[in-house]
């Protein structure tokens, strides 16, 4: 299935709500569906906030089932990833409430719930691909 989503937070919300009602999503096992909801929202929010960052542009999602879950490709024509590399997505969960992070969870969630996460920049196009499977592959 392919979706084209305008690059703003409200449109991302509506797209996620539409996906949740789609036959594709309703037919998924609960674990994959939850993971897809989490990851796709995070990836699109990152595009809105960082790739487009107030500029206008669309996000193209291609989501297709495969034997173990879903394969996803997200493309945008915004700014490239800094250093053309994916963020590590590490944050330190600290004990003191004062020191708790309020951000940085997004890439951690993406990396925790995906396999074969790859980023590619060609011309003006960013492409992020990954698979979503049922298990939390990197849960400690």
């Amino acid at each position, binding site marked *: 299935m392919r979706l084209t989503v305008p690059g703003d937070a409200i449109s991302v*919300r509506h797209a996620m709500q539409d996906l949740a009602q789609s036959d594709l999503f309703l037919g998924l096992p609960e674990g994959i569906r939850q993971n897809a909801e989490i990851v796709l*929202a995070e990836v699109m929010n990152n595009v809105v906030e960082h790739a487009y960052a107030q500029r206008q542009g669309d996000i193209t999602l291609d989501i297709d089932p495969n034997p173990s879950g879903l394969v996803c490709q997200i493309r945008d024509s915004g700014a490239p990833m800094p250093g053309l590399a994916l963020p590590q997505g590490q944050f330190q969960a600290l004990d003191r409430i004062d020191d708790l992070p309020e951000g940085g*969870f997004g890439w951690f969630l993406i990396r925790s719930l995906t396999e074969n996460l790859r980023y590619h920049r060609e011309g003006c196009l960013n492409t992020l691909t990954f698979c979503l499977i049922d298990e939390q592959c990197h849960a400690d």
Partner: protein
Amino acid sequence: MNLMAQETGGILVIQALGDRIDAAGAIQFKDRMRELTRASAAPRVVLDMSRVAFLDSSGLGAVVAVLKLLAPDRKLELSGLTPTVQKVFRLTRMDSIFVIHDAVPDGLRQAG
């Protein structure tokens, strides 16, 4: 999003009425929570999330921000985490930071 606050017996229960705490609404959520908690001196604050089906990293950050702004005098408690929301808290280990109830603490049933 809409938040409904009710204070009974020293506990301020704030119910989130929208079904998503996400990037599109996290800042407004945080600001509204700040207003509601400032308006009350109740020593306990419970955020009832039983209607929230989804929370992303922005939403999580906003909830953590509320925890921090209430500290050190008050500790934010959460109740009614739905499955996907629970998953986000568990994966990020934030479920160990908050007091989490299955439902709003006894004696404080919300009407409607």
